[in-house]
């Protein structure tokens, strides 16, 4: 396993080091990930697998401290090891109170790494502030700041009214490291002098405090509150207990939600940037996840589609600079990372080079194409760049570290199909999975979705000035649009895409916008069967007349299967201009040159009612109605939960769920699971389900003449072979393509056929269409005898051709009790010499193991555990590359990349150097304050 692509699942904390220019993200499962310049990334995992609550970089160091929800603190370091930096956990520590004290006494709520780099200040629920030494985590008891000591300096009448309660924020004075600002949740704020152990100033806030922020010169600070207000306080030597300068409710006058974090950024032109999270009118916009940016008369409330976890501002960290001059805002939402360019007018978003939200609509399938020709690559990038014009041109602002990994050896594309009918093209060549181009198939169809249903369509004068940002939108209006199968021919640029409602689209790459009619055909897969009634979803309605398509892949043919069941297999032959598709009812072949259906074959067993009525679609429609009701909930704008209360509830719910799981687990232990032992029979359900389709030019009828052929494998262990007659190129439009069934093989073990492959006379797999024409592959050996490899879920079998006799077999399931889930041929090159490579079968089993099986002798070479066997969706999502790498989803939003090849290895390799430390430490110490947001 080499690198994780995509967006971390359930992020829970964010940190940033202006000194290293590195960003850190913590997750609910205890992972911590560091990102810098593209290609610079590190990952660590807390042993406890507990939620990461806070992340703080130690000023001017390659070190960071994390706080977990079990109240433990962890010190991580970036250290160089054999030429590259590595992230390692150095120490761990849990604050312990005196015996008998309640756990709240030591529950850490705020962390301040002091600019001296020697101590951490830990604010707690009890209101006491403990001081621990770094890196040893030794508690310096004599330096503890107790709430009693603080209250001693505060006017009596104020104390009587409110106790201190928990420490909400700790901020070091930007100019004077001996002073720290302490904010208590009830609203009291004091400036504490570390040298003399006394309160120098106290600020008597009347509202429940959320957070604090110092102005750069230390003359003022700003506090934000639970009631949606923020307050400015002056700090001067003449007034030790000043009144607030200004108290303002930005979205008043009606009750507002809390402002949980605030920035005050100074600029050369005098107008500050005030940036705050939350504060929306409680009744009408309380469910929005917003961050507002105010600069003079400009004000925008960025509206995120998922909960905001945390954010930070990138500003001038030069100690000599007089102003902050913010350049970018980086927002970590629950489902995506959004970066806003604050320097360009209109505050456009910046296209992130990594952390892409793979799941902005749920991934339904993926397809990998290795070694893309440069020409196609450039055309896809050019099509994609036209879609990305609204992004800022700002260079990626988080640019710490140096990527020292070698350049990727080739251009690889990963295509992901999504539930909303889109296909996304990702650059999967290197460590950063980067979106190149997004294709939508929706335009071909008439859907229920209202095109004007855009929550962004707010007028100029709307208040609050909300602006939707980000791409995460998991709500699909019509699940039938979902993409199920993708096939891209990298030589011709033909793309076939098939979906949930039996739709098959063939597309061509066009560099210009175009308006044209999509040819439409129907394939009735139940031709000779009678008396059946499809109870699943209806087929998609198509648009009449010409449709306008943007530059990129443009559909020119649509085939709709009848009944409109999910397309379960797809194959495209770009040289013969044929596309084959299969569903649970049968399969068909379409000539996309002449735009004519060549034939259909029904594979349905007459007794298979289940497949007929489409129970899968009934499940789907239930899902759809659920989704719609969720959508309604979202729109009804019911007040969402307060940040703190909300997450508290969430964790309670989680605990309850965990307890429930445990209980059910125990119950299951009492009444153990049984498994029925029964041989498969021809009458089982879904035996006609077409699992695999394959085009081959081979010897099907006799050993003297080879011909094009189409092979199909079903769930019931049947293999059909059709002999095709494709007219020569000069008469391609004049004569029809003909097909005739030549063979039907029934595997007696009746396991689903998951792969079909023809090996040439040298036992090499037949090349892809057009591969030979482009001089990228040797011509197949058509002299020697060909062999047919049929892979079922249980066995691998090699047969001779054209006379089918069984030659070899490997009974994997009988031997190991595992079943084949994914299989592909991979080419393994030697890392030592360029002139040796071999083809082997790469197999993923239902146990999550990956096995390499030699060709053509079917000998098991090696086995690696890869995916947990309980991770069904991970196993289902796995996709192999042609050169021994692969991807699988470790969460809805992340692909894990793995490599079986010693030659092709894509993994991060980077160095983070410590920039020279300036002698003027205390000027630098903003870095420490940067990240001190507490979340509970």
């Amino acid at each position, binding site marked *: 396993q080499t690198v994780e692509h995509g967006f971390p699942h359930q992020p829970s904390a964010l940190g940033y080091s202006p000194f290293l220019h590195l960003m850190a993200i913590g997750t609910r499962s205890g992972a911590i990930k560091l990102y810098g310049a593209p290609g610079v990334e590190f990952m660590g995992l807390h042993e406890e697998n507990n939620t990461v609550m806070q992340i703080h970089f130690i000023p001017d160091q390659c070190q960071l401290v994390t706080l977990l929800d079990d109240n433990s603190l962890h010190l991580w370091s970036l250290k160089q090891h054999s030429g590259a930096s590595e992230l390692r956990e150095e120490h761990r520590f849990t604050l312990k109170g005196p015996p008998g004290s309640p756990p709240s006494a030591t529950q850490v709520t705020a962390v301040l790494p002091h600019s001296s780099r020697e101590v951490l200040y830990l604010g707690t629920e009890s209101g006491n502030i403990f001081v621990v030494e770094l890196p040893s985590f030794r508690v310096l008891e004599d330096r503890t700041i107790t709430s009693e000591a603080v209250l001693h300096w505060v006017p009596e009448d104020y104390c009587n009214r409110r106790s201190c309660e928990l420490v909400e924020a700790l901020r070091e004075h930007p100019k004077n490291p001996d002073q720290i600002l302490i904010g208590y949740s009830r609203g009291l704020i004091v400036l504490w002098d570390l040298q003399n152990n006394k309160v120098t100033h106290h600020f008597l806030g009347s509202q429940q405090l959320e957070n604090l922020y110092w102005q750069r010169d230390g003359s003022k600070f700003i506090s934000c509150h639970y009631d949606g207000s923020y307050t400015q306080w002056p700090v001067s030597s003449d007034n030790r207990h000043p009144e607030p300068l200004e108290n303002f409710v930005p979205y008043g006058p009606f009750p507002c939600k809390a402002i949980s974090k605030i920035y005050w950024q100074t600029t050369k032109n005098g107008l500050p940037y005030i940036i705050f999270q939350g504060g929306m009118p409680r009744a009408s916009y309380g469910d929005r996840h917003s961050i507002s940016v105010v600069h003079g008369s400009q004000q925008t409330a960025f509206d995120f589609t998922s909960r905001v976890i945390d954010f930070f501002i990138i500003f001038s960290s030069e100690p000599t600079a007089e102003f902050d001059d913010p350049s970018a805002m980086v927002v970590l939402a629950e489902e995506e990372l959004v970066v806003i360019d604050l320097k360009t007018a209109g505050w456009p978003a910046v296209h992130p080079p990594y952390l892409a939200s793979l799941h902005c609509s749920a991934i339904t399938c993926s397809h990998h194409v290795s070694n893309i020709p440069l020409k196609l690559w450039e055309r896809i990038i050019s099509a994609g760049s036209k879609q990305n014009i609204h992004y800022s041109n700002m260079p990626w602002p988080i640019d710490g570290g140096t990527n020292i990994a070698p350049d990727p050896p080739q251009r690889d594309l990963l295509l992901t199909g999504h539930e909303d009918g889109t296909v996304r093209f990702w650059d999967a060549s290197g460590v950063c999975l980067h979106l190149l181009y997004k294709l939508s198939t929706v335009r071909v169809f008439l859907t229920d979705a209202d095109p004007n249903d855009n929550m962004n369509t707010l007028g100029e004068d709307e208040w609050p000035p909300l602006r939707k940002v980000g791409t995460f939108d998991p709500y699909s209006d019509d699940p039938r649009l979902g993409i199920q199968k993708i096939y891209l021919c990298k030589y011709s640029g033909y793309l076939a895409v098939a979906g949930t409602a039996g739709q098959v689209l063939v597309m061509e790459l066009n560099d210009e916008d175009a308006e044209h009619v999509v040819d439409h055909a129907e394939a009735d897969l139940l031709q000779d069967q009678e008396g059946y009634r499809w109870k699943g979803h209806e087929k998609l309605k198509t648009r009449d007349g010409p449709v306008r398509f943007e530059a990129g892949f443009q559909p020119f043919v649509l085939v709709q299967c009848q009944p409109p069941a999910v397309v379960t297999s797809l194959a495209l032959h770009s040289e013969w201009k044929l596309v084959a598709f299969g569903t649970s009812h049968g399969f068909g072949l379409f000539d996309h040159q002449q735009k004519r259906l060549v034939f259909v074959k029904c594979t349905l067993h007459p007794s298979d009612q289940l497949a007929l009525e489409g129970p899968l679609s009934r499940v789907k429609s239930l899902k759809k109605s659920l989704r719609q009701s969720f959508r309604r909930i979202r729109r009804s704008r019911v007040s969402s939960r307060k940040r703190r209360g909300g997450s508290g509830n969430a964790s309670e719910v989680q605990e309850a769920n965990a307890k429930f799981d445990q209980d059910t687990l125990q119950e299951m232990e009492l009444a153990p*699971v049984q*498994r029925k032992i029964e041989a498969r029979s021809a009458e089982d359900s879904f035996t006609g389900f077409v699992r695999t389709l394959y085009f081959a030019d081979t010897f099907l009828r006799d050993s003297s003449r080879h011909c094009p052929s189409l092979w199909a494998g079903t769930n019931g262990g049947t293999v059909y072979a059709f002999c095709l007659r494709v007219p020569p190129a000069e008469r391609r439009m004049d004569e029809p393509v003909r097909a005739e069934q030549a063979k*039907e093989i029934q595997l007696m073990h009746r396991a689903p056929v998951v792969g079909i492959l023809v090996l040439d006379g040298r036992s090499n797999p037949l090349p892809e269409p057009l591969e030979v024409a482009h001089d990228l592959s040797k011509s197949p050996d058509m002299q020697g005898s060909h062999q047919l490899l049929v892979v079922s879920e249980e066995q691998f079998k090699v047969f001779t051709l054209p006379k089918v006799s069984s*030659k070899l077999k490997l009974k994997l399931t009988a031997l*190991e009790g595992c079943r084949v889930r994914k299989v592909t041929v991979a080419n393994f090159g030697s890392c030592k010499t360029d002139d040796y490579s071999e083809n082997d079968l790469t197999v993923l089993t239902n146990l999550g193991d990956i096995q390499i099986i030699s060709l053509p002798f079917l000998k098991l070479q090696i086995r690696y555990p890869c995916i947990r066997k309980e991770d069904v969706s991970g196993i289902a999502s796995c996709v192999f590359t042609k050169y021994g790498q692969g991807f699988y989803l470790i969460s809805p939003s992340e692909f894990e990349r793995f490599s079986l090849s010693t030659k092709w290895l894509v993994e991060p390799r980077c160095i983070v150097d410590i920039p020279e430390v300036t002698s003027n430490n205390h000027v630098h110490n903003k870095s420490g304050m940067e990240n001190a947001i507490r979340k509970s």
Partner: protein
Amino acid sequence: EFRRFSLERSKPGKFEEFYGLLQHVHKIPNVDVLVGYTDIHGDLLPINNDDNYHKAVSTANPLLRIFIQRKEDADYSAFGTDTMTRKKNVLSNVLRPDNHKKKQHIVISMPQDFRPVSSIIDVDILPETHRRVRLYKYGTDKPLGFYIRDGSSVRVTPHGLEKVPGIFISRLVPGGLAQSTGLLAVNDEVLEVNGIEVSGKSLDQVTDMMIANSRNLIITVRPANQRNNVVRNSRTSGSSGQSTESSLPSSTPNIVANFLQGEEESDEEDIIIEDSGEPQQIPKAAPTSESLESLTQIELLHESRQNGFLPSSEMNLNHSAGSISMEYEVQDPDHKSLEEDGTIITL
């Protein structure tokens, strides 16, 4: 050969005289034979002294059925009083072949005419506490019919007794193959599937292994009831193995479902339909790919002989005259406990 003759019921005479009379009417004066008769319950009982001869004659009502076998190929186990059901079958089959001809039934006697549904194998190499059962699944007429579950069993290890996870039979489907053999029972621990140990494997893995082997499933179990274990003695050696090797020819050789393979080619072969023709079994490829078709034929025949196949049923009839040869005949008569478990042979 059948003979009918009369005896004086009141004066039957001595056994030796009767024995001589039998040799005389059958014209086999120098052949040693075993003489038996069917009593009123239909049991086959021996006649070898005056006492049981007199008893036999006195119970004749009015007919006395006498059954004669050559001594050298006699079936001793056919005698007895405790396996009534089975013997009724045996007797009626042997003594009243006419009934069966009417039903167009194949002649009973040779193992080839039976379809084994299960057997106990490898008795000689397994510990006495274990039992290796082979289930033969033909076609789809009868379900295998059992369920397995997770559980824990106690093992003796160098560190003392240890509880380890195991796989157990949890349920037998009434009327299923597993139940009808009587060789498997609820709570038997599954130790191996087709020679592969299940320890360390999950329930789902073992399920998949069993289903993958469902056409020829060999399960090694530790029976929950250890009282019926095989008691080993010299006569058992190899005997059960022999029985599993015995194979039968198919009456219609092109129907693959009736084809029984040898030990190494235990699952059924796949079927191919060429150009919408008749379904055919896919042959094994010859080492060289030339003249495949002719080689395939030879190979098939060769394979059949190796496995002890007899190509025609007429031959069986000739061979079978005068002897009872049954699937279980080779089993030690001491193993009555096994026989009690029910019908292990079905037609």
